């Protein structure tokens, strides 16, 4: 077949020494093209201005899966300790629904081995189980009056994280991603890091529901490829990958000039970004490059006193969270499994606290030292709280030493940085820690406040689906001014 050699575009581009995006291509192809193609479709992840000046540009949302005992960590109850062992008052049990408690339980005060201490200038009372957190008490904005609608894990996780107790709604992070876009086009706008098994709500906890899937969280895994399919298949080196992408983009560019579908221009850009991610993500995951002092502060598993080199750990994830935020990722979400202490609280809680206390405190300090805490909202989250009454069975229903059941009516979460009021305790529970006595904050109020801190009006951040404007907070939610700096 006769064949005329056209100008070899690859060689021109290779001489230029880098890959190319659709814009460069469009320019090159402009003269050859008979069809005026539409410009690339607007990038759905392009950075967008907030509704009003934001207090926080980034969020690190730490969800303790299973829900820690706030009564033993953040909300001291001397009266409960005093009455430890008494049968609980009738009104705390009769007509109420619990996940496990089936007969009238006894009151369960915090162990005498664990003491609360007034910390820092602010004098916030925190348990000795978290000594490192105590040292950053003045940065914390503790909310002791959260309440939710659900008391089983799966539905409560969905409710806390998507504002709805069933599947199908967008997650908090995906709403933020949708509202604000991302600063760093080489990384996803919403990254998820997990230690332990996945929570019951599954991928929906960071899913995009009915929002376009580009807004969903992307899990960075601690083993295997950090991002699924990031590394090249066997036998393909980086140069070959470049070679293949160049070929794909060249042919796609000529299809674009023939057909004019703007999706093709977008696709060309996405292949370039994929190629860049193949370099930027491994660089990001390489926490070895951090200083020894940093590793020591976080207690990572690479060096210092962690549980074993190279193993995934919560400490590593905290350090990664800071690196992600530094690189402009909008929303980082950490999940840590293992906080559902129905029994054997005295053994399990200190162990879990030990895993997270140092890294969480180090994260706050590190952000502060780097001047990032002002613009980074750190959230300590859980799906609900624990009962002030004792439960003594494990998940199989066997007798164990005492723990606490799920409690939806009153629990504690805290925030730090990102325009929250530092050194504050907001809201109050009754003397037994059962109900809210002052300033209740519903999950919708809390989420409305988080969006507000990110510069988003929760009533205006809407998406049209099934004939109506949906939002994270349904038709509820009031921004809690008392939590703002």
């Amino acid at each position, binding site marked *: *077949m006769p*064949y*005329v050699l*056209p100008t*070899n575009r*690859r060689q021109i581009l290779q001489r230029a020494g880098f890959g190319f995006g659709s814009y460069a291509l469009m320019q090159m192809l402009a003269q050859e093209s008979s*069809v*005026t*193609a*539409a410009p690339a479709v607007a990038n759905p992840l392009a950075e967008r201005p907030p509704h009003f000046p934001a207090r926080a540009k980034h969020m690190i949302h730490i969800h303790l899966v299973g829900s820690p005992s706030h009564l033993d960590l953040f909300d001291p109850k001397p009266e409960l300790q005093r009455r430890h062992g008494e049968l609980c008052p009738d009104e705390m049990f009769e007509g109420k*629904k*619990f996940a496990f408690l089936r007969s009238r339980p006894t009151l369960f005060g915090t162990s005498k081995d664990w003491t609360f201490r007034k910390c820092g200038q602010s004098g916030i009372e925190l348990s000795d189980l978290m000594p490192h957190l105590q040292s950053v008490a003045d940065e914390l904005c503790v909310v002791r009056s959260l309440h939710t609608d659900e008391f*089983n894990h*799966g539905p409560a996780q969905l409710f806390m994280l998507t504002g709805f107790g069933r*599947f199908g709604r967008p997650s908090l992070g995906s709403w933020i991603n949708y509202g604000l876009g991302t600063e760093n086009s080489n990384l996803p706008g919403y990254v998820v890091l997990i230690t332990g098994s*996945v929570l*019951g*709500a599954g*991928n929906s906890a960071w899913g995009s529901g009915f929002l*376009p*899937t*580009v807004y969903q969280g992307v899990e960075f*895994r601690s083993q295997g490829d950090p*991002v*699924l*399919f*990031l590394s090249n*298949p*066997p*036998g*393909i*080196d980086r140069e*070959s990958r470049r*070679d*293949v992408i*160049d*070929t*794909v983009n*060249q*042919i*796609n560019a*000529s*299809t674009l000039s023939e*057909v004019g*579908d703007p*999706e093709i221009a977008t*696709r060309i850009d*996405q*292949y370039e970004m*994929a190629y860049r*991610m193949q370099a930027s993500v491994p660089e990001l995951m390489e926490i070895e490059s951090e200083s020894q002092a940093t590793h020591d502060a976080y207690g990572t598993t690479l060096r210092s006193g962690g549980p074993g080199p190279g193993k995934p750990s919560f400490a590593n994830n905290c350090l990664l969270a800071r690196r992600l935020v530094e690189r402009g990722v909008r929303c980082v979400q950490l999940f840590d499994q293992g906080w559902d202490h129905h029994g054997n609280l005295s053994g399990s809680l200190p162990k879990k606290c030990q895993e997270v206390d140092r890294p969480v405190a180090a994260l706050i300090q590190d952000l502060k030292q780097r001047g990032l805490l002002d613009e980074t909202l750190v959230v300590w989250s859980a799906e609900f709280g624990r009962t002030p009454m004792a439960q003594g*069975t494990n998940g*199989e*229903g066997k007798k164990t030493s005492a723990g606490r059941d*799920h409690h939806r009516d009153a629990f504690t979460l805290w925030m730090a940085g990102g325009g929250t009021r530092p050194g504050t305790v907001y809201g109050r529970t009754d003397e037994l820690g059962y109900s809210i006595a002052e300033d209740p904050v519903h999950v919708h109020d809390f989420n409305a406040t988080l969006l507000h801190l990110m510069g988003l009006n929760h*009533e205006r951040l809407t998406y049209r689906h*099934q*004939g*109506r*404007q949906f939002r994270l907070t349904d038709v509820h939610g009031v921004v809690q001014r008392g939590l703002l700096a």
Partner: protein
Amino acid sequence: MNRKTFSVRLIGILVITLSSWALRSGEALAVDYADEVQPILKRHCDRCHGESAQEGSLVLFRRDAVLGVADSGVPIVVPEQPDRSLLIERVTDASAGDLMPLDGQPLSRTEVNVLREWIRDGAEMPDVSGTEHWAYQAPSVDPQALRQASQRNLSPIDYFVEQKRIRSGLPSPSLADPATLARRVSLALTGLPATLQQIDDLQRDPSEENYRRLVDELLASDAFGVHWARHWLDLARYADSNGFQADQLRSSWAYRDWVVDAFNRDKPFDQFAIEQLAGDLLPDANLQTRIATGFHRTPTCNVEAGVQPEANRVQQVFDRVNTTATVFLGSTIECAQCHDHKYDPFTQEDYYRLFAYFNNTPLEVEKASGVRFDFVGPTMDLPLTDEQAARRKQLQKQITSLRAKQDALGGEDRFQAWRTQVSEALRQGRARWLTPTPHFSSTGEEPFQVLDDQSVLLQGNPPGSTEYRFSYDDLEGPILGVRLDALQHDDLPGRGPGRGDAKRTNFVLHDLQMRVETGKKRHLISLADAKASFSQSKYDVAGAIDGDPKTAWAIAPKFDQPHWATFRTTEPVDAPRADQRLVVTLDQHFGRGRVIGRPKVSFLIGPPETVGLTDEIAQLLGKATPLEAAEIEQLRTFFLANDPETRDPERKIRALVSRRDRIQPETTLVMVEQPESRETFVMRRGDYLSPGEPVSPGTPSALHPADADLPPNRLGLARWLVDPDNPLLARVTVNRFWAEVFGRGIVATPEDFGTQADAPTHPELLDWLALEFQSEGWSVKSLLRTMVLSETFRSSSVVTARAAELDPDNRLLSRGPRFRLPAETLRDNALAISGLLCREGAGEPVMPFQPDGIWRAVGRNQPQWTAAQDQDRYRRGLYVVWKRSAPYPSFVTFDAPDRAACTVQRPRTNTPLQALVLLNDHAYAEAAVGLAQRMVLESGSDDPREVAAYGYRIATGREPSLSAVESLLALFESQSALLAENPDLVDQRIGVLPESFLDPAFASGADASEAKRRLGAWYAVANALLNLDQTITLN
């Protein structure tokens, strides 16, 4: 508002038909209220200024109100004067107060311009104050329009589309070339690319008739049902797991196969709906119609500890009600769970009347034990598969034949012979255990004492290891067995039976030997049939007689008790002669004093025939007087149970029966009605713990009435839904099929046809399709045939400059469809191109390749992901196991839902993560090897240029341009050079494909390494081809 009576629109149509000359110049016509203005008001304003709410007493849906004044006295809309109209001011000027709408994104510039234009043109709007929404009116088509279409020999689709296009000033598109069209129609109908033969054939003869023939061929192929089932299973939220914490797998794939089959058989859509909603209640219900009810057994189910089964059931019923309304009515009635619907005519009572239809199924969560819960609920057995049935038959045959043999054996003669033999033997006495006095010694030389019961109590320091020897000069015969007791004693540490320590009183007996010694000559007696009071795990008593010094009998943790072991001699042993001794040795060399503290050795002695008789049987057999009938029967039963000749076959039969019974039919989840109806109440605020007024099953009052003779159950509901008077079902259904074929619905919100829905872009077209669908007997194949035969479908998808400007989203169908393939189709397409695709279907879901660590434990009974190595690895995406908490990752990346809830329309995104899947996912790497193989082997050419061109054709269905071939060649050459320098990479590349799929041409032979190197280079080219926009796009 009833748009059928809207005069402005009719005038509009007249204007169009009279003045098509003016339109060719692209002059835009007056803004149409119903088409353009009303949707804007509905979308942005109706929530607060519509029928259900009038914030600031402002109403924007009635003509008189719109032309009136606001509370402030300012006119809302002044015809022809947009700048004096408050409406424009409030949506554009924040200084006039809060920018409207208060609760949503501001209006786009285009939208504001439409409003301005409309006001400038005189703000024409119909003077109706009714609540009648277009979707609730019966579909109707102007017969005049159909006549015109037929006069011009146009399909009504093309006629209506052309009308709209002309009105919008858009030129007619050209038709797509035959190759593009063949690939497009094949992907649209079957989800697989056209074969090269099909493409060639249409290119050779691009006539209408030949195209029609291709369409019919595709509609008739089995791939059709597989493709359309995918779409339907999104609606049915079908998955293979429960969802939530435990997320165990469940078996419901028979329903999935039923859907495939229904599409392939072109089951009329009304019947399709009825069987899925109420197949169990049909008068002629059968296996298939019951399987169909799996449609509503798909809701998620939470079995986490502490769950409330009733709360779970109520959530599932909510899901059934909401899904039914979404799928069959295009209505989102979820709002009415808690209160009357804000926009659409559904009351809370309507909601719970629908709820009542579904309120009669059993709980699906059951407390298993303690706080552990299980997924239960009705399942149905499926017929055995052919293979199962054959296996069963074979086992049954074996059982029957053994039984016959056994019957023959159990005959009277044998029994009588046994009776005589044993009776005679009994005259010699009955076998019994005797404990003679031993001559004892131990290699440890520790002191000992023989106690009265002839047991030996060891004393002194326990030796680390030792061998006890029991020797007997004078014994009766025949000897049939030996028994060892390890007894306790107060003098032993911790009372024994071992001597090692007081806490762990274990002993370890490595070998027990029994022998006859004649002088120095030893004759070892073979022992068998070891039994013991208890054996420690991995220290079975059989180890004591197997001759292996490493195996042994021990008894931890049952320390605090005596133990025994018995062994049978394989032959009766005669009593030792005068010059002989019978010797039993116990070798114990574990160390740390794990030796027996008080052993006792006994022997079973007597006629062998009498062993194992019970006292009662022995007595009967010894009786001198004749036996009674009942006594003989007792003997016979004993004989049959103990005679090895009959007992062993019996055991074999029992094993076969259990194997036969383990062949159980597969099951599937189905709907059933409980015999007793549950009462249904309105739930206050949607809370099942706050029941309000009781309600009975009934259909929403705003929609068409239900026939009085319909039963008040799911079947009645199903028949009401498919009633020809239902204006929604046909419209909603044809719109969804349209959206799948064209990439976008005529109503852009296929999940919602309520008052908040987007208006149809082509209302007459929608109505015509709906009517046509019904008059063609609800035939889906016929509906799709009509769509793909239209010129609208066959148009070129090239975006002209004018189309890009006036119709960027192709709402007006100014060009043919062009969109990225859905997740499963994308993979199927790649597999088909690579030649790896397995077209077999049905049955249990399959596990192809996926990266490690996707299925992380989220609960108990966690199944493992084991990637298939056979054909199942390349089955169509429909058959990939769907686990809700972790669906197949590449599907998720390409916008597949988690199937936890009904999904009507998948988003269609374009992301870098998708590029990573197509470039790097092993599944696509394997496909690239497959494609490279095809290119090399099928192109039949050594010219790289021709190989490249062939690959491009397989991947895209089209001939490549010169520049495309040049690009591919350059890649091949640079890769060939790379592989010449780095030959190691070749095997790494090809190795991703399981070896059995590698063509022999590359597996062995003299040329293999050269052939392989070329394959490795083509692999990179194939990788590029599988990533081309043209490959992954329906265009």
